[in-house]
């Protein structure tokens, strides 16, 4: 049993290197860009320890749970998570 960690924002996708546009640094926000890179690197390290492969854009440890979320008791189609997205 487990949970799903779905990272669907490009800047968060593995390998979690900073993909921030250069406009931030050009505007003098280099310090914040560095902070983003540091956090991204740390996240990559932790996810690697969790066994996440660099090619993945999602982590799933309970496929069954996610597959049933839309059809289970009380579920009203809130979650449009389908297995083929994972």
């Amino acid at each position, binding site marked *: 049993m487990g949970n799903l960690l779905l990272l669907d924002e490009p800047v968060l996708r593995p390998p979690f290197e900073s993909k921030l546009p250069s406009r931030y640094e050009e*505007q003098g926000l280099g310090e914040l860009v560095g902070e983003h890179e540091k956090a991204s690197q740390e996240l990559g390290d932790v996810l690697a320890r969790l066994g996440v492969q660099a090619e993945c854009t999602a982590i799933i440890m309970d496929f069954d749970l996610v597959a049933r979320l839309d059809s289970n008791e009380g579920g009203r189609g809130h979650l449009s998570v389908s297995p083929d997205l994972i």
Partner: protein
Amino acid sequence: MVTCRLAQISFDVFGKLTSPLQGTKEFMSEWMLSNLDNGFPYQQSVIDDVASFLNVAFWAALFNTVHAGDKTAAERPWRRDVRSGYKEREYAHTKIVSGHQVQLSGFLRAFRPLLGDWRNYIQGLSGTSPRPLEGRLEILRWDLEQQIFAVQSVLAFANILLRHHDDLKAA
């Protein structure tokens, strides 16, 4: 589940944030719903997505069908509460993570420590009041701060997950 889609953010010509509030009510952050209830302006941001993630996690733990036959009587009202309103939802979450005097199903029992740690993290945060942003630089800075916060929040969750990983695998 955590989704870290950055909030869709737009600004008017005066640098005022104009994005409409959006989301599924059952999963919306307490900050957003309480402000809506009181008629106060509110700026949806990544912090609300992070809070929504926790609400989805509680929902998934309460409504999972993996061990459907294992549900306890105590869980039935919580499943009703999380669909009722944010106050009832918060009450149910509190009961779940305290969980000392009630019998929990195996699934919820296994997840309770993780949910408790994650909820503690969320409760240390606060929602965002709208504020006008002046000029391109301030908008860029705000946007970048949001992105940093998103990564840091996923990192916080990943660390919590790592902390409980062995126990969850064994459960």
